[in-house]
């Protein structure tokens, strides 16, 4: 199982949990399985083309998946995946 860290804006979809345990071998598979457990969450993470939305970074352990092999990045038991919105703010 992979520990997936859920960002604040998506926690209403995981019943308020900031971490969930999800099975899967790759980032793509984990996003799909996460969405089976918490319907609708994939649409919030990925756009219509299936690409990760422009304001979200996904990390496996401490590395951004862009510098690994993107959504095909493989994970093993004990790895952690973090879904992190880039910094924002306002006036």
């Amino acid at each position: 199982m992979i520990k997936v860290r859920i960002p604040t804006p998506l926690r209403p979809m995981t019943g308020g949990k900031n971490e969930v345990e999800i099975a899967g071998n790759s980032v793509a598979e984990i996003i799909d399985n996460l969405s089976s457990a918490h319907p609708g969450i994939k649409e919030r993470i990925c756009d219509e083309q299936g690409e990760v939305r422009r304001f979200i970074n996904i990390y496996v352990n401490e590395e951004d998946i862009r510098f690994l092999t993107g959504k095909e990045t493989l994970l093993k038991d004990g790895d952690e995946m973090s879904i992190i919105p880039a910094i924002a703010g306002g006036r």
Partner: protein
Amino acid sequence: MFHIPSGILQDMIAHARELAPHECCGILSGKNQSVAETYRITNILANMSDGDLSRFEGAKLSDLQRLSPEERADIAFQMDAREMAMAQRDIRSKELNLIGFYHSHTFSPARPSQTDITIAMEFEGYRQKLNLPEPLHLIVSLEHTDKPDIRAYRIQDSQATEVQIQEISE
């Protein structure tokens, strides 16, 4: 006390002016308490779908929903995540640290808004897990067009505390 070369302060002001009335945003890198470089990051807010706006909360979200996409960028910013990741990688490759984030307030003072504080606290939770250093939050205010104001803050426990910055002439 943080040291920022005057060229970098000027560059942040120029960035804010170029994008006004939209808010600009960017990243500062450096070593210890000295800023070495800036990275201009695209404010993608005007290109975000209505669904993506739920990344914001409460009053800010309802304000954003009332505005046209173009107007939204006047009152808020969202960094492009890819550019942010590329900047962080570049910073690492130069053996520097991420020192902070900056953004502009085109019509209001250089003080963190409730949204700035909420999102900074959200980021605090993530960055500790990712072993990133605590960032400084800088705001460039263009409220008084002929007298731009830059101030820096630490944001901890939902409180913003101003940190003095010292301009270093080059």
